[in-house]
């Protein structure tokens, strides 16, 4: 009886999402037809390019990795009632820290060097998130303003460090290559899918357990839903805000670390196509649930790698992948409305 209702609930939650994806693909196919290509061919190419074989899948997961970290970053702040649009800047700080520790520390075994690098990159992100958190708690400065401003400062600061301080001589604005002892091991040859992905999955599970099975996670959720009740429940509202924002920064830092240590093996100027911003959508699409974000991130990764694969096969511009992404976001977000209606109907039937 109980199990049935749980399954029912899952169905009610997933069917609208599936319909939404189909709906978005349908609209996309109209666009494809409009530019004179065959939608079926295009989607086949897209599917093959994102899930068709182990390599494609690896590419998709590789691309999903920054979104997993980013969405974790977003949701941990959101759970404390904070809107962190500074993930991008915090990510850059984490990345530059990762690269500095990656190339400058020598002689350490991997088992020490890699964790050290990851931790320091988290510290970089935390440092950058600490500023808006502190401004919020101490001066009531709205985190949206401060994080928007700090993003720009982070771009400039990492730019300065890359070009003038840790610059590897040559044409490219990049730092030195990190030592092999700090590299995240590649999982599938030539895909750049690395252990960072696994770390992301493990962290999602840890955050899930933390939020829903520990008293501290409970505190975070209480504070996110109703900060006024916090003191009555023995929860220090400001401390939760600070800690959540800082943790959010740590996860943002890990996006950077994964790109630096697992993909580029160095910090490259302007390496991000906006991971930190897209991650917000991923987080929200995953309903800010640490497990919900995983399929959302993979969906986004698939759309992006599939989109390019599609343009390899069929003459559609890469922008179509992004258009589909936007459509799917809107459709899924709207489908949650249908979900709600279904739940209500379900209750009524009972």
């Amino acid at each position, binding site marked *: 009886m109980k199990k049935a209702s749980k399954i029912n609930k899952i169905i009610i939650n997933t069917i609208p999402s599936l319909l939404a994806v189909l709906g978005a693909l349908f609209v996309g196919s109209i666009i494809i037809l409009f530019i004179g290509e065959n939608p079926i061919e295009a989607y086949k190419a897209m599917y093959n390019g994102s899930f068709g074989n182990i390599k494609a899948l690896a*590419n998709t997961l*590789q*691309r999903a990795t920054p979104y997993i970290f980013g969405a974790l970053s977003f949701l941990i702040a959101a759970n404390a009632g904070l809107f962190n649009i500074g993930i991008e800047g915090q990510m850059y700080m984490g990345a530059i820290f990762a690269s500095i520790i990656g190339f400058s520390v020598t002689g350490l075994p991997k088992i020490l060097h890699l964790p050290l690098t990851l931790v320091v990159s988290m510290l970089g992100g935390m440092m950058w998130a600490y500023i808006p958190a502190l401004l919020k708690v101490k001066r009531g400065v709205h985190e949206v303003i401060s994080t928007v401003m700090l993003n*720009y400062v982070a*771009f*400039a600061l990492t*730019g*300065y460090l890359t*070009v003038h301080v840790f*610059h590897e*001589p*040559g*044409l*490219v*604005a990049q730092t030195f290559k990190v030592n092999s002892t700090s590299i995240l091991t590649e999982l599938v040859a*030539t*895909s*750049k899918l690395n252990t960072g992905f696994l770390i992301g999955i493990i962290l999602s599970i840890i955050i899930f357990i933390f939020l829903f099975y520990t008293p501290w996670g409970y505190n975070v959720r209480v504070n996110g839903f109703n900060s006024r009740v916090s003191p009555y429940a023995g929860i220090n509202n400001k401390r939760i805000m600070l800690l959540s924002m800082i943790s959010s920064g740590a996860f943002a830092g890990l996006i950077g670390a994964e*790109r630096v240590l697992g*993909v*580029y093996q160095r910090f*490259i*100027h*302007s*390496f*991000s*196509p906006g991971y930190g911003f897209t991650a917000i959508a991923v987080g929200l699409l995953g309903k800010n649930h640490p497990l919900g974000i995983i399929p959302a991130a993979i969906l986004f990764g698939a759309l*992006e*790698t599939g*989109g*390019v*694969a599609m*343009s*390899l096969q069929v003459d559609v*511009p*890469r922008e179509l*992948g992004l258009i589909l992404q936007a459509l799917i976001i809107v459709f899924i977000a709207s489908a949650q409305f249908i979900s709600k209606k279904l739940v209500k109907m379900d209750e009524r039937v009972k």
Partner: protein
Amino acid sequence: KDNNQVNSNENIANNENVSGTDEGEKVKVGLLTGVAGLGDKSFNDLAYDGAKQAEKELNIELKVVEPIDLASTEGLLRDLANAGNDMVIGVGFDMAEPMNIVSQEFPDTKFAIVDAVVEQPNVQSLTFKEHEGSFLIGALTALMTETNKVGCIPAMDIPFLNRFTNAYEQGVKYINKDIEVIVQPIGSDFSAFNDPGKAKNIAASMYSQGIDIIYPVAGGSGTGLFEAAKDANKYALGINSDQDYMAEGLVLASMMKRVDVAVFESIQDVVDKSFVGELKLFGLENNGVGLSEMKYTKDIIGEEVINKLEEIKKGIIDGTIEVIDVTAQ
């Protein structure tokens, strides 16, 4: 408008009848642009123009792909090679490492890379001595300034652009040490290449402070400079392609970087089966970089200055004038 520029090139015109009607199998060419993608008003667009020209005039089948981020370039180069392309072209200095890897995986495929050097037997490296062109246009600036204050607006402070900026400054100072050169980058992130608004603001501010000629090194943002030049009725310079038309009479000259020609020729090598993996340097001597024909400004500039520029150009080519490439240490 963009296509006209390529047509105007003599090299291409000469080759027109060589292969237009070739029989036999088409040569398949894959072009991977830089992350900025098409529409960057810079090397991606120019490489694309060259490849398109080849598609039109040579017996090739062209596939153009734009990557979504840096991380995906290696995979895409591989995909293009895997897809049976005879030739794969990568655009941009940040593609050097991936191409180095992929070109070794596909020894039978021919590769070309723009703006970087990859030392592999099956890779043609097409690099440009932008500093030479920038030096020359710097000299022009110095000869034309009346206020002895000139400006330069790069998108960002990054090594690749600093080659332009520094050589420009060197060219200015070569003529007159006392001329002040003010360099003001637009920003620190990638949007600086697509922010004509801020470029215009910077240029307007420069003009209002007595600067009378400005050199943009900022891709799509450059448009903003030309608008400021029109508002202030002061001079600007063009970059990469012939941009003299963008503010007729106010764009003194453009520093042309013939990526289009380089790409076209490289494809032609493959078609002619004369492709060799080598470093192809494009400088003033082979017209790989150089000044535009100054269609609208010849009279303003005057014979004397143009002659002087010729002289400097010769000096650079024969080595009596040494132009510094800041990135080559």
